[in-house]
């Protein structure tokens, strides 16, 4: 499917009679990237679906004031990351769990998830990723799966490239060790 450029989408949203149509095109363009980014963090499809919908509702509300200083994708990714982290924090608070237990619950979810079709080694890889602290997990996923440049990640996560490189390096080493020893 051909997608409009971000500039064209924003122009359609701001200046056409039908902003819903423009927004629909925007959702179609970015929904899969945003979905997979969130899915790798929250694991469960239903939870991911809730978070994804919340991300786009927030985008709809904020798009009117979006000035395109950062790219549209950067902006959406930032909303998605924040929403996923907020969701995990809520889960932790709701069940009075420390992070390790939330991660354990997500890891258990992988075992029973009907929407997970990976083999044993893939399951092990994702369990290893779940053993990371949330921010390291985000950095690792963005680099390892989404192949996002450090420069763009720094803009999305509002941090320095140095910090991201260190996080990714540390996370990759830990995952390799986890996969070897488990």
């Amino acid at each position, binding site marked *: 499917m051909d997608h409009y450029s971000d500039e064209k989408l924003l122009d359609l949203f701001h200046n056409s009679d039908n902003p*819903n149509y423009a*927004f*629909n095109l925007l*959702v*179609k363009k970015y*929904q*899969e990237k945003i*979905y*997979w980014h969130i*899915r*790798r963090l929250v694991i469960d*499809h239903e939870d991911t*679906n809730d978070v*994804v*919908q919340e991300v*786009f*509702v927030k985008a*709809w509300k904020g798009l009117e004031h979006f000035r395109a200083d950062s790219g549209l994708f950067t902006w959406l990714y930032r909303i998605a990351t924040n929403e996923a982290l907020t969701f995990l924090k809520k889960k932790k608070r709701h069940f009075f769990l420390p992070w390790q237990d939330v991660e354990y619950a997500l890891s258990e979810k992988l075992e029973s998830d009907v*929407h*997970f*079709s*990976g*083999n044993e*080694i*893939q*399951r092990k*890889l*994702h369990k290893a990723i779940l053993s990371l602290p949330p921010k390291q997990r985000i950095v690792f996923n963005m*680099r*390892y*799966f989404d*192949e996002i*440049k*450090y420069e763009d990640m720094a803009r999305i996560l509002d941090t320095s490239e140095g910090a991201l490189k260190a996080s*990714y*390096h540390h996370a*990759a*080493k830990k*995952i*390799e060790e986890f*996969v*070897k020893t488990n």
Partner: protein
Amino acid sequence: MGKNDIKNELREIAPGIEKLRAGNPFQVPHNYFENLPQNIQEKIAKGKSKVSQPVFQRIGMPRFVLATIMTVLLVFAGYFAFFHSSPEIYLTESEEIFYENYLAWYSEYQPDVYYDILMANEEAADFESLIFDEDEVLDYLFDYGDYYMDYITYTENDFEN
């Protein structure tokens, strides 16, 4: 930095996981992405119907009037909080008696009884973690009716003396 650079970087840091990247083991329900834009539009439409006006608009009051009323209420609330926040040590028969008042009074004037009250809570591990149930304290005081009768017949002057 291109995809090859990302691969090379991973090969240097953690070669053991470089090859595991292939394939996406997660799946979505059938036609999920086809229906998602429509679901999002429906959620946005629902949200629109729920959007409510700010309070001052809903009650048809200019913003500065509402702000003035809120300020006056806050001043009164602050006044009462300030002058009524210290524990009521000196109680009279006519005042409503709360268990905090009992405890405050006993800790001040009958420390041995206060100690007994604390010990009555067998589950308490230490003084600071004690959380009294109002019924427990009132039951205790009911069982020690003499103290209770003494207490309610004290007057403010008795305490001061």
